[in-house]
């Protein structure tokens, strides 16, 4: 049996992909050439145009995963759609989470002089990453789609909890990490910096959306393949009958 040839890209995803590329290009241009270096941080401030956006997308991924899982658990809403969304969110979220850890570490090395420190924000992000690995490992080891969705959605809810705590971590504990800078009244960044940062959110948002659409579609195709496979499998199973001795007595 061959996999059906159906691309995981659609018109939507192509549009998303191209605009993500353009937006990334713009961010790079503004970030590296247009916006000025920082008074304190010098050239390193330019990671500001990657790290917060990437971190936010990581939240978005896990958040979507958890919300979709809750939707799945809600009996009235239950549909395979939610499970697809959950796995897409978790996988894309894990990628962005790794990116957050990497960019954050690089930045930390530059500004704090260390790759890592044990403050609440950083640790929770690492825990989040570990949880997502566990989530994905769990998904791989359950075969039945319904069971997989059921079991993994319960684990996903804990990720949501962690995301929330992680977000408020800088407020609740004394941390080395930056407090909320952007999404609050009277942001502390201005001018080109602010513009570039916002642009970076747009760019990574588009990248995120593009990846999500692809991953979702992939899951859908996988499922369709499975369903097509199901009728084939059913036919194959029933064919085991043919050529069989007739049953029973005259």
């Amino acid at each position, binding site marked *: 049996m061959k996999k059906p040839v159906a691309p995981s890209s659609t018109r939507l995803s192509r549009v998303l992909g191209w605009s993500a590329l353009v937006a990334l290009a713009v961010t790079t241009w503004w970030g590296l050439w247009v916006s000025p270096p920082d008074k304190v941080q010098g050239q390193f401030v330019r990671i500001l145009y990657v790290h917060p956006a990437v971190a936010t997308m990581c939240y978005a991924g896990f958040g979507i995963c958890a919300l979709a899982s809750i939707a799945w658990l809600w009996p009235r809403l239950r549909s395979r759609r939610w499970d697809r969304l959950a796995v897409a969110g978790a996988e894309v979220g894990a990628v962005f989470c790794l990116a957050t850890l990497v960019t954050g570490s690089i930045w930390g090395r530059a500004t704090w002089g260390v790759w890592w420190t044990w403050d609440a924000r950083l640790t929770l992000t690492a825990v989040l990453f570990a949880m997502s690995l566990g989530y994905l490992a*769990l998904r791989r*080891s*359950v075969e039945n789609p319904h069971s997989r969705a059921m079991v993994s959605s319960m684990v996903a809810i804990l990720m949501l909890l962690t995301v929330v705590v992680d977000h408020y971590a800088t407020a609740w504990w004394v941390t080395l990490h930056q407090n909320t800078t952007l999404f609050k009244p009277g942001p502390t960044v201005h001018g080109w910096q602010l513009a570039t940062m916002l642009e970076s959110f747009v760019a990574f948002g588009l990248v995120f959306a593009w990846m999500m659409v692809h991953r979702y579609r992939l899951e859908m195709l996988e499922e369709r393949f499975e369903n097509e496979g199901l009728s084939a499998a059913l036919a194959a199973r029933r064919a085991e009958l043919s050529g069989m001795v007739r049953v029973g007595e005259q």
Partner: protein
Amino acid sequence: MWRDALVVAAKDLLIERRSRVAMNQVVPYALVVLLLFGFAFDQQRPLLEQASPGLFWMAVLFAGLLAVQRSFSVETSDGAMDNLRLSGLQPAGIFLGKAAAVAVQLIALEALLTLGVVVLFHTELAGAGLLVASALASTACVAAAGVAYGALSMGLRARETLLPLLLAPVLAPVVLAGTQAWRCALGLSSGDGWRWLGVLGAFAAIYLAGGVLGFGALMEEA
């Protein structure tokens, strides 16, 4: 539900009485882990004393993992889990029963381990109320989360490796809060220990509630 919990807990404790696995194997293991940590921090006596609450809770965590694993290997070794599912016992009851059995074993373990810490690391006990209260709350967390995830990973292949992976991040905050509470109780740090106890209580409540509500589905699907 309570009756069911009692039936299940009685069964698990009877198995423990027959096999003495927790007593003869898990407890010594925890002590060995403690010793090993001593090795790892060798030659840094003051640090060791400072770190003793952390070490204690790490040892409890690793031993707790074993206890949970054992609690479920008993169910899976001959396919008894299907019987449990079909028995008509309420899932919440099964959850509470198994968690209670694990908790009882853990509490015994902690008592012995505390002795170990005192002897090995010269920790001086103080703030007994806080110590005991936070130990109880942490134990409830470990038992509840452990049993919930144990049920989940039970039906799966490669159960013995998936369970620790899933459980460790969930218990990380518990270990953290337990450590902090003990540090405060022992006067190693100046924070407000009772606030950490509150955190532990919240976690215990969440995990217990989650287990009571979700255990049916977890057991069904795994």
